[in-house]
């Protein structure tokens, strides 16, 4: 049993041997060769006709390569990205309001100074030249200089990206785990009290405006009770990497995360519930029950993996949206993130900054979609044929 009868990759019997064609698909079997050896002994039975299965003309073709799939999806993502970059330039050129005049309004400036400012920002050049500069800038990682902050946009985004990722990633993880878990229990116990409570509560939160919920939370826990800080990410002066600093950041994180989670987890719950309900009458669940699995095992091992498939796409789409949706929450809680930066850029209008955040937000959403496609392929073997 422990000695392999032949080398798994020698190809001496190409018609058998799990893993010769797709190595690594089966982590449960570290030694395919030994299992094969015993299968071969069982197979020695002369009554066995030689491979009737290879003569099966109805057998569907094998799956495609991952590289091709990946490159195709990557190509799609790249196309979207190019479109976003082009759109990012022209959309903000069409915004009403001249940024230079706006700046000029705030302090007295002569027409010569205004023209000077225009040429400094490159706004006097023809649009096509500006577009070219913009493209060159993007390729070299230079997104221009913010009119308001007087700093490089790339540097600003780099500085504000971290807090946004911290906030949205925490919220996303909690919302997804909570939503999917509540969703599958709701579906499994359809029409039970649990189902009704979970669904209706989530829908109430879902229909509440984010800023309103944020303000209410702020008033109660930050204002009246004074349990939690009312804004910012860290008490000034604390080192964020010291133990006290970490606790302080967590305290600041609680309210914005709750506002974000409360509003979005309903969609994960609803999607999970609906897709699990779709699976509940499938025949393979009857097979699983007939095999003697407990209801819990039937749910965890068979129903949920299938129900996750439609859920994954939507979940990833919403993670992208969540980051963009953080704009409101960040504004309410003065969270020093990209959302707040965007909010301020709109007031400008700070064109380079707007362009920069627009491109970064879009890029995040595109990357999330790409990730969804890739995860989906791993979850659903049927996609591997596409």
């Amino acid at each position: 049993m422990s000695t392999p009868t032949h080398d798994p990759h020698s190809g001496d019997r190409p018609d058998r041997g799990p893993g010769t064609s797709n190595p690594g698909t089966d982590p449960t079997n570290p030694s395919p060769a030994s299992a094969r050896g015993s299968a071969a002994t069982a197979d020695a039975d002369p009554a066995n006709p030689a491979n009737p299965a290879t003569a099966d003309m109805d057998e569907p073709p094998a799956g495609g390569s991952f590289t091709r799939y990946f490159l195709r999806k990557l190509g799609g993502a790249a196309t979207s990205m190019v479109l976003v970059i082009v759109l990012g330039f022209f959309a903000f050129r069409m915004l009403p309001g001249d940024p230079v005049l706006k700046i000029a309004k705030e302090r007295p400036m002569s027409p010569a100074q205004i023209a000077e400012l225009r040429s400094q920002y490159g706004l006097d050049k023809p649009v096509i030249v500006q577009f070219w500069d913009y493209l060159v800038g993007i390729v070299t990682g230079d997104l221009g200089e913010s009119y308001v902050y007087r700093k490089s946009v790339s540097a600003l985004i780099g500085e504000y990206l971290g807090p946004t990722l911290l906030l949205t990633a925490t919220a996303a993880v909690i919302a997804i785990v909570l939503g999917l878990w509540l969703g599958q229990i709701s579906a499994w116990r359809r029409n039970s009290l649990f189902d009704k409570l979970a669904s209706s509560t989530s829908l109430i939160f879902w229909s509440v405006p984010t800023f309103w919920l944020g303000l209410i939370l702020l008033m109660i826990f930050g204002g009246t009770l004074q349990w939690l800080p009312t804004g910012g990410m860290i008490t000034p002066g604390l080192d964020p990497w010291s133990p006290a600093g970490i606790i302080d950041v967590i305290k600041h994180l609680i309210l914005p995360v709750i506002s974000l989670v409360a509003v979005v987890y309903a969609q994960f719950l609803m999607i999970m519930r609906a897709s699990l309900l779709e699976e509940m009458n499938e025949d393979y669940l009857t097979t699983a029950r007939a095999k003697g699995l407990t209801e819990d095992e039937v749910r965890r091992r068979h129903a949920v993996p299938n129900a996750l498939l439609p859920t994954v796409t939507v979940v990833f789409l919403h993670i992208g949206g969540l980051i963009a949706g953080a704009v409101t929450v960040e504004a309410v809680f003065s969270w020093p993130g990209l959302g707040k930066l965007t909010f301020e850029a709109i007031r400008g209008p700070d064109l380079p900054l707007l362009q920069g955040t627009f491109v970064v937000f879009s890029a995040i959403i595109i990357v999330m979609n790409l990730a969804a496609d890739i995860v989906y392929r791993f979850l659903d073997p049927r996609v591997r044929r596409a």
Partner: protein
Amino acid sequence: MTDLQFENVSITYRSSSDRGDVVAVQDVSLDLPAGATLGIAGESGSGKSTLIMSALRLLPKSVRLEGRVLLGGQDIRELSFGQIRAVRWAQASIVFQGALHSLNPVREVGSQIIEALEHHSKGTWTTPQKRRDRMFELLAEVNLEASKSSAYPHELSGGQKQRIMIAMALACEPDIIIADEPTTALDVIVQKQILSGLARLVAERGISLLMISHDLAVLSAVCANLAIMRHGRLVEYGPSDEVCLSPQEDYTKQLAGAFPQIGDPESRLNPRTLKPAEVVRAEPFNMTDEVVLEAKDLSVSFDTRRGRERAVRGVDLQLRKAEILAVVGQSGSGKTTLARSLLGLQEVEAGSQLSFAGKALPKKAKELRAFRRKVQMILQDPAGSLNPKRSVYEAVVEGLKVQGIRDREYERVIGALEAAELTPAEDYLESTPQELSGGQRQRVVIAGALALDPKVLIADEPVASLDASVRGEILSLFLALKKNLGMSALIITHDLGLAWNIADTVAVMKRGEIVEYGEVDRVLSDPQHEYTQELLAAVPRLGSQSLVRNE
């Protein structure tokens, strides 16, 4: 060894909806002693599936069961959930319709077999390695390569999936195997392989077999005893040969006659049904010499991962006015591709010639639309081909709308429904597909085609998903359409009995080629090609028990 007994079993689905409680099984007593084989035949709604599911207590909680189901003398209702779980698969396992969705689509089939072993190790398959070895042993028993263990269900053909189901059912060495329509949706050759494999494994091990099917011939091929069920009641019960060959009840006779014996002159051009479609024309149309649809040297190729594959190779085919041509072959033989090419839905290779009424098949969208008015397609699954949200009227009128036919819309729809024998047609106009039976749905689909006054119908397995008694009705409708309207039909099927029932000519396809083509009487009575002979030999015959006690 374990006996299975049903003692005066009645099963009711309790429901709070308007329909109230539904009695699925009524007072059925059946006995399956150890080592015996019993078949239960019946159509959908006969309660046969409900009955066998009760043997392992797999029915939903809302079901009320009266009487006793005894497994090895023990009333299964008295077992705790833990005990019933231990009984499931270890004492009695089920072969579901593997060809459909009985395997989990996102897990490797090998691991699904191993899962059963994990739950019932019986002191033998105690380690992962032993379970794996057992799994490979099982695959070998059902003639599958070991490499198939890492395949996902969608990577297997219908026959291979069914073998996996059988391997899984055998896994824990059960005393009883319950087979639920194990060969439905498989073609005759694969059906024979599956049935003989199942019969052999069951006989070798002395396992008792309880099998249900709508096809008496399939049951009689492997079961010694037969029970016929209808509307939840047992209609007839006895040894296979008696039930099949000298049935006492009218219903059994109808079921037995639904699938014709090829070569039996009585069923030639005469599908057995209680509701035959009327032939109203004084001089019914007969096959003429006028060629309507013709294919010459038709070849179709697809790009697949294995390279370019030719699905249809050099096919010559003629469909004459008022001719019914049956194209017969296994799944994967290219017959559906052939049908799609004839409709202009499929790109064909250069050199292929397709013509309709003497003219080459049009290529432009507008002309193709006019062509499709004259050549209509009917698909296999009427439930899937009708939009569930649309009424019968909307379904039938859609073709008229697409073709821009505005005048006498209502009359045309009524006429089409009546031609499809849905009478009085007015009663059906507002129905939605869910309110109709399978046969009625297929009639609606046919009416949708007839509304356009086509010259040719191309039907892809038009009766494969219908009950035995409905099958005869629909086939007789095809025959009547030909006789009354002079319509030509090309019917794609894997069912040789269908060809015997209604077709004038038959073309046998294998791997994209037509291997035999001619008059039905000649080809099916005196087949020349060895593949035709193989197909004919694989058709199960009534009352023969051909696959078990044949030694």
